[in-house]
């Protein structure tokens, strides 16, 4: 092509003064693809463009293609990059097939849109991060989630390391797309620059880049490929260090941009807060477990061929303990004849919840200390009374002591009540008897009285100790009715000949169903049963019978 651009342009400018100085790049191209007009602004973008010259080779490919399409009839505006900048090209068609392309720069808008998209994405990720991290208060689980999320959103692989023992740390690691591994790892934090400080939370350190080649072997996942970058970020907890996050990227990935580092810090703050909350919860649970262990009702077993079974439900669903309690102390006393007598205890401390439970702990410990005198119930209760007498407080406990011994196939009981509800006995015939064991409540009056009653259980017979949570249960099908002693007698009558576990379960269930969804007091039942022999007849008759 002949280079005559300047001349022609001059003539064009004469035709239309506005084109030359238009603030937008303008290029006019004929149907054959030859440039007819190119203004100053366009020449800045397409320095090679010349009037009469071909559009191809001097204008960007996307514009050339758009021009061809336009000539073919598709008259869309298009957009594309010119160098680092981006433009929208608006076609204006002439009569002779010439198209004038007006170019409008949209670099800023595009960048802003891109930034907005990224920001939205990150907000969504942070939202997901927060909700997933906050679901579990289990420290291990929390670390796993943090490692998985970090590997998914921040890096090709991630390590979450929690402060641990001397040389042994809980870690969670995850390679993007893979499963999280949680283990305890004996590593030296000094192997990784910045890790020791991050785990100690002191001195405060920023995220730290480390030289991939200096990374210890354990840090590099198997078959990971060449590492491009590694960054160690402390996980700040609630005033205590929660651990460290180590992110690894492969060489083919870009290194972390400044933006991504900011994002990683936001992530670390959330992960750290969640992990330290989980750790505090775990510590609290472990302390509570330890303190609670002695307050929880014990698991009961057969002792000397005598069945013991208990059921317990505290008044408050949020508590695990309350003011009711029971215990069975096997072989508390050896009688003169060499027979052993176990001591079963069931009682009720006036009050509810943890406060009452603490007093049950005191009562149970005291009774345990008094076991050597379990042969003398009255003496035992007097000493317990003395131990609990308190001039400030009228909180009291009612309790039943039952010394239980096996004599042949029978079970012999000595029962004494310290102001408690009378024990009940169900005979194999279904007859229910109240045991006449009376006495004073414990812990208020300086002097107490107590009488001991003796009962013999034939095989299949049960003695039931229970608290007022059963008899005073409010509810029933019509609501607002007290369960009462009569109903308890009837329920027990239906339990004739049953094993202790079934009796305790049945009584507990009937009372609980009576209560339904209503509020209730602590509930405790303890069944003591003489086991049936091998060859006994069927359990009662058949049919519910109403």
């Amino acid at each position, binding site marked *: 092509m002949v280079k005559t651009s300047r001349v022609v342009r001059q003539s064009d400018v004469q035709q239309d003064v506005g084109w030359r100085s238009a603030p937008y790049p303008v290029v006019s191209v004929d149907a054959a693809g030859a440039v007819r007009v190119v203004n100053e602004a366009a020449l800045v973008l397409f320095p090679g463009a010349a009037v009469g010259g071909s559009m191809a080779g001097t204008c960007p490919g996307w514009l050339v293609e758009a021009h061809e399409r336009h000539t073919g009839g598709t008259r869309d505006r298009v957009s594309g990059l010119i160098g680092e900048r981006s433009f929208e090209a608006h076609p204006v068609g002439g009569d002779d097939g010439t198209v004038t392309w007006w170019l409008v720069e949209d670099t800023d808008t595009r960048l802003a849109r891109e930034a907005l998209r990224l920001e939205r994405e990150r907000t969504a990720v942070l939202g997901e991060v927060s909700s997933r991290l906050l679901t579990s208060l289990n420290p291990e689980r929390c670390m796993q989630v943090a490692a998985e999320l970090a590997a998914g959103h921040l890096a090709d692989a991630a390590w979450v390391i929690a402060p641990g023992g001397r040389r042994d740390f809980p870690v969670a690691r995850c390679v993007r797309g893979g499963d999280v591994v949680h283990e305890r790892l004996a590593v030296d934090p000094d192997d990784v620059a910045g890790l020791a400080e991050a785990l100690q939370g002191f001195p405060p350190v920023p995220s730290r880049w480390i030289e991939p080649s200096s990374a210890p072997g354990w840090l590099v996942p198997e078959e990971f490929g060449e590492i491009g970058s590694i960054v160690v970020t402390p996980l700040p907890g609630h005033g205590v260090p929660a651990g460290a996050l180590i992110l690894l990227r492969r060489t083919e990935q870009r290194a972390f941009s400044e933006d991504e580092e900011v994002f990683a810090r936001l992530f670390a703050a959330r992960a750290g807060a969640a992990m330290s909350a989980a750790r505090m919860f775990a510590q609290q649970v472990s302390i509570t477990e330890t303190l609670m262990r002695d307050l929880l009702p014990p698991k009961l077993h057969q002792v000397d061929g005598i069945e013991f079974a208990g059921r317990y439900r505290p008044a408050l669903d949020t508590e695990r303990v309350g003011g009711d309690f029971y215990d069975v102390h096997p072989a508390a006393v050896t009688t003169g004849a060499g027979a052993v007598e176990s001591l079963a205890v069931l009682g009720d401390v006036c009050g509810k919840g943890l406060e009452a439970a603490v007093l049950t702990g005191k009562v149970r410990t005291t009774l345990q200390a008094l076991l050597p005198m379990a042969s003398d119930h009255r003496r035992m209760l007097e000493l317990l009374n003395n131990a609990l007498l308190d001039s400030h407080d009228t909180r009291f406990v009612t309790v039943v002591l039952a010394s239980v011994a096996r004599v042949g196939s029978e079970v012999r009981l000595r029962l004494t009540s310290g102001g408690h509800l009378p024990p009940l006995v169900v005979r194999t015939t279904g007859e229910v008897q109240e045991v006449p064991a009376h006495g004073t409540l414990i812990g208020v009056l300086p002097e107490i009285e107590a009488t001991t009653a003796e009962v013999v259980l034939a095989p299949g017979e049960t003695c039931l100790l229970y608290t007022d949570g059963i008899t005073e249960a409010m509810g029933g099908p019509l609501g607002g009715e007290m369960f009462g002693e009569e109903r308890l007698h009837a329920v027990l009558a239906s339990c004739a000949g049953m094993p202790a576990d079934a009796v305790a379960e049945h009584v507990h269930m009937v009372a609980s169903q009576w209560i339904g969804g209503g509020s209730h007091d602590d509930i405790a039942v303890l069944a003591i049963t003489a086991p*049936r022999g091998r060859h006994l007849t069927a*359990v009662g008759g058949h049919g519910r019978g109403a």
Partner: protein
Amino acid sequence: MTTTTRETLDARTCAQRLWEAVVVGDEHAARDVVLTASGEGLDTESVLLDVIGAVQRRVGAEWAANRLTVAQEHAATAINERVIATLAGTATFPEPHRGRITVACVDGEWHALPARLLSEVLRLRGFRVDYLGAQVPAPHLITHLHSTGPDAVALSGSIATRLPTAHATITACQAAGVPVLAGGGAFGPDGRYARLLGADFWAPDARSAADRLTEAPLPRPRGTHQPIDDLPHLGDQEYTMVSRTSGQLVKAAYSALEARFPELASYSESQRHHTAQDLAHIVDFLAASLYIDDDALFLGFLAWTTDILGARGVPARFLPPALDVLAAELRDFPRAKRVLARAHELSTRTLGVEGPDHDHGPAA
């Protein structure tokens, strides 16, 4: 395969023998049956599920058919529990190498044995199992989940009236990041209620529950699953109203029956209690069916209750008038009205034309 068939036959024979021991309360014989079965080569899982499990299902069926009292059911269950303990004491369990599973019952559930059986099966398969049993309030379960971080909760429920509680429990477990496998009769024969309430998996029995967990871990729940998303119909408050006023509804129905059937006045205390209890069950099941918005739940219960009343010798003819009273009390609640109308139609059809007293009065 032949071996499988023989094992199943053996298990069936053993189950029959165990049933005979359990139903007469002979713990020693029950123990012998199970230890013999185990000693003669029946694998432990099969003893648990095809012998003990089969007997327990039969216990449930006999109770439902009114051939066992609740107390007898408890006696049988207690023996089965002990038999499981004996078996667990003699069986060898592998070192836990799979995952950790929490097994619990819906709070208010009294049938713990299926959950117990599943626990033992999971232990046999190499899971680490925390068996929490029945009567576990949701707050305890959730604390347990946080402190132990299991891979899944297996939740067992047999009573449909506990479905609202089951729903709350499922949601709470998932909110704590733990997926829930649901099982048991409460969730419907095809598990439809389990899906409706958002459970991550439903298993028809212990073996398929164990199979599913053995196959691969359940995916962790993601996102915040809100209970109301499962059951948008709860917005009409019908469930809330019926469950809150259940005492009043039972009372209203009871007095209406008294007015209609003078012989009720001569009922004994225990008969009156049973009648009130039957009405309370009707209201409970009505509430549950409103909760999950499935009339079939209520209609199914009603058909069963009609049979039971028959078996007990109590005339079921008080059902239609009781349903009438409830419908009148709940006239402002379209869903309740609809299901009560269907129930009324069903019960009059089953009972034939409502007529005056039959010769046989209420059973003693």
